[in-house]
């Protein structure tokens, strides 16, 4: 690893200054599970590491009437152990429980997962399904970006020089809301998604009609893909396997994967449909209150 | 006389015979006896006074550490086979 300077600011303003001073060769450090691995392998050429975990706002978790706000560096472990999140946002746990193994979850954060901006990131389709708003701080103050607009290319995103992600804001879920994230991997753990799918639905009060839906895919495009047409096709439709299959086909059509060592184009196209349909089923069950977070291990092929 | 199993790739030297008989109290003597009937076979089996590296001799089912010096009985069965050291076969 190349020599680096390490700074650990205590406030957002200090962090902005440190990052601005370091310029392009400075980078915020959250859980470090991507960044330190990249440094170790010589894949990242940085001079300054700005550890943002000493800034209270960055690791705070606040959940209440106005929704959920996650500090960008809050660890998956702290999310997994938060009963209010498990109750209120069970689908979120789908992601935080399968990013890396247990010890990765001890450090890895959703903010880091988002900022690493891998097309295969396990949280981003889920964040899109949840209509998350990204709070960004930088030399010009604060701004917000819809999560589906955050990533711009593999490993790239909207963060400008000196900017960093402060928090993720989850709007209060409407009534009869349900969501789910599934990924496909060859092993049962410790793997990068071949395809990931995050879906959410809002059902009618009787649970029979899909009022609105959001569908998102990972690892099938240069960025996590928000498949708006699939959600649109579900809106106003009765809950049925045919409806879900149609949405799944639209997701498959939207997917434009490459073949690489983790998967082939036909496999990824096919899995886009399979996982979309499976996540929609779970999201509907959750919207109806019939599936709990504790089943998620099995849902993700851990059974 | 000892029964010597001829490795398939040397059977051109024995006119295609799979098993031939040869006299000898040691592998060295057996090889010498073979070479009288089937000239050239000793060169294929022996290199620098030892069994060719990567190959070994088995007498009566057991691989012989003593190589050419191993004893051969009147009814013995002699094979020349690729040696298996440590589980990994040497392949010439």
């Amino acid at each position, binding site marked *: 690893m190349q020599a680096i300077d390490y700074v650990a600011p205590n406030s957002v303003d200090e962090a902005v200054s440190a990052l601005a001073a370091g310029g392009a060769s400075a980078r915020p450090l959250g859980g470090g599970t991507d960044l330190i691995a990249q440094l170790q392998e010589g894949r990242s050429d940085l001079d300054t590491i700005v550890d943002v975990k000493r800034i209270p706002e960055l690791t705070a978790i606040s959940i209440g009437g106005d929704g959920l706000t996650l500090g960008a560096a809050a660890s998956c472990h702290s999310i997994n152990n938060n009963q209010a999140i498990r109750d209120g946002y069970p689908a979120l746990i789908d992601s935080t429980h399968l990013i890396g*193994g247990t010890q990765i979850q001890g450090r890895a954060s959703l903010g880091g997962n988002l900022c690493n901006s891998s097309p295969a990131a396990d949280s981003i389709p889920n964040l899109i399904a949840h209509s998350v708003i990204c709070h960004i701080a930088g030399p010009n103050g604060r701004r917000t970006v819809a999560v589906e607009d955050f990533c711009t290319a593999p490993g790239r995103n909207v963060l400008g020089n000196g900017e960093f992600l402060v928090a993720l804001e989850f709007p209060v879920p409407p009534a009869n809301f349900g969501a789910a994230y599934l990924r496909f991997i060859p092993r049962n753990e410790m793997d990068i998604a071949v395809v990931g799918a995050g879906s959410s639905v809002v059902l009618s009060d009787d649970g029979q009609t899909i009022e609105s839906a959001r569908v998102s895919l990972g690892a099938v495009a240069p960025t996590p893909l928000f498949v708006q047409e699939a959600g649109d096709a579900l809106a106003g439709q009765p809950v049925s396997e045919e409806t879900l299959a149609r949405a799944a086909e639209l997701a498959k059509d939207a997917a434009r994967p490459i073949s690489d060592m983790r998967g082939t184009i036909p496999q990824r196209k096919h899995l886009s449909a399979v996982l979309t349909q499976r996540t929609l089923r779970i999201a509907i069950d959750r919207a109806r209150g019939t599936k709990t977070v504790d089943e998620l291990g099995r849902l993700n*092929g851990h059974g | 006389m000892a029964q010597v199993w001829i490795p398939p790739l040397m059977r051109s030297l024995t006119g295609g015979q799979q098993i031939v008989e040869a006299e000898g109290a040691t592998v060295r003597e057996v090889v010498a006896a073979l070479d009288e009937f089937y000239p050239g076979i000793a060169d294929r089996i022996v290199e620098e006074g030892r069994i060719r590296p990567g190959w070994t001799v088995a007498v009566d089912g057991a691989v012989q550490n003593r190589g050419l010096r191993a004893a051969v009985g009147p009814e013995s069965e002699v094979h020349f086979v690729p040696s298996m050291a440590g*589980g990994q076969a*040497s392949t010439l």
Partner: protein
Amino acid sequence: MANTNPNGSGGRAANGQNGYKVIGTRPVRPDGVDKVTGRAVYAADVQMTGLLHGFVLRSPHAHAYIRSIDTSKAEALPGVRAIVTAADLPAAEDKIEDLGEGAINLKHLSDNVLADEKALYHGHAVAGVAAVNPHIAREAAELIEVEYELLPPVMTVDDALADDAPILLDGLRTDSMGEVGAEPTNLASFFRHQRGDLDAGFAAAEQVVDRTYRTETVHQGYIEPHAATALHSADGQITIWTSTQGSFAVRGQVCEILQIPVSRLKVVPTEIGGGFGGKINVYVEPVAVLLSQKAGHEPVKIVMSRADVLAATGPTSGSNIRVKMGADAGGKITAALAELYYEAGAYPGSPVGAAANVSLAPYALENMQVDGYDIVVNRPRSAAYRAPGGTNVAFAVESVVDELAEKMGMDPAEFRILNGAKENDRRPDGLQYARIGHIETVESIRDSEHYQSPLEGKYRGRGIASGYWNNWGGQSSATAVLNPDGTVNLNEASTDIGGTRASIAMQLAEAMDIEYEQVKARVVDTDTVSYNDVTGGSRTTYSTGLAAYNLGQQLKEEMKRRLADHWDVPAENISYEDGVFEAGSESMPFAEAAGVVQRDEPLMASSTVHPQDFGPGFSTQLVDVEIDPETGKITILRYTIAQDVGKAIHPSYVEGQMQGGVAQGIGWAINEEYIYDDEGHLLNASLLDYRMPTALDLPMIETIMVEVPHPAHPYGVRGVGEVNIVPPAGAVANAVYAATGVRMEKLPISPANLLEAMWAKEAEAAAEPVPGDD
């Protein structure tokens, strides 16, 4: 005969089996506490004053001439102490020597350690750097400028044997059992086992199955990366501390590569974090020695990164295998043919010879032929991996056997029993079997609760497969020192990877009729005992155990002789039972006698052995799988292994070997593979993308220890380490067929590969005319 209980009891409890007191118990190993507390010293843990850190620069290309190496910028970096390249190695002779595990060409051995004219694989070592810390060493390596002239990569059997294939090694000629070809080639050797009349055999068959298979390169996957520290002292004496399966194998190789006499080199084996055959060849050791010498005789430690381990060490061969088998109306196999094409990596020496021996070994065959081809390709030089070559070929053979049994309408276990090899049958190389336990392993599986229980549910299937491994004897040396308090220090040189200090000490304790706790076993360096072969070939508990048995006999006899003198009675009057010496009215417990017999003269014993009558091992395995038809993913529902273990000295460690081999075999079967791009770059050199099984990928692995004692060992020991990895891929493939109707013809049976095969089958079914009522 069968033991499936994992719970053990320590110490010396009479277990009622054959009257053994220590053998068959489950004591804690002598190195156990150090290993659960983090105190055990592995190779990377070695620390010493003045320690420098080494790093090895590796080729980014699969096949290239090295035109020049400029180290000037690297040398100028502060903190750099030495840089070496192939130019620092003595010229090696292009000749074959028996070193470590089998015959090795010295030029190839040397070139693999530091590439000379050519880089032959992505990851091939090119230069070594020593610096004051590992970060600077790595930075310096990046400053070394190497000029390469790229050549087309030759990545597979088919590439290598193509008419216009680029030639990897200029001097290579095909050796067909002593007959050497004239033309440059990538086919290093060809051999054949053949007996009976193949054509007549196939003509007599009612059903014939003829299929071709492909398996990918896989790695041993030990969790400890290679690491070594070398000190080249100012007086010329050299010491290497390293993680190895054989300290004498390291000594032999390093001395040949550096052309130094063995008396100048001491190899100290540290604790070893797994090997499975991959820690026999030297990689960083000679480089560390050269760096130490050049850096002013300071010690140099080189610890490989995981990426380097995967790119440059140990993998075992990918292979193309054809198997053809026929059976008559009664279900008897009438003829069998196997053609084995194994990728050796950059230098000759794939395990195709061993594979040939495994291939048809479980079956009694009158008409058979096995052809073996050893082929060089631009991949890392292959190394032994647990029953080298066996898993590949058993996948192919057991798939064909399963298909043949199905065609004959026979239960696959009964088919194996009908055709199974027994005592006096012949193995593929023609040698006759002594007493073997193959049939017993099949019967144990057939009679198991697992086999007898129904497996219900769609996309679920059950598969069975058998496997053979010849095991090995090899040379062992050990000494035993009798302490005056009745304990024994056992010094042996077989690296302990899975508890062999315990299993060897137990045999000494049994032989001497003392408690296990009275024997203190330790692994010593190459200056302390005589030559000792590697821990490999399933030989350690067998051969080094035999040496320990001999030590026990020697000590006992000498104690009797000295006690006879002490009591002034004839030696033949002395008896020794239950730990007590007796002669008439005289009696003395062992511990007291140990003091008495050493009042005038100390007592120690030494033993060297080279047994050549080693008992082969067989295993039969049963697996239930479930397939997700939408994703092609396999879940292993249940797994049972039966293995002929001869006699289980320490049953827990025997079970551990069985379970570990199965786990590796499952990984090989379903996910492990080297993935290269078109230019020959290894893409998945990490434990993220080289997917070994996690705890979540496996069920409990049920073990049935079948004990058919090996007649040529005093305790009936057969090697137990390897045969367990032979059947899993075949068993899983057969289970996948039962679940999906798809016969997989390649490994791994990864989700992508299985999904593709299921799609192909669907497409085929759709294309076929519907069976009509015409």
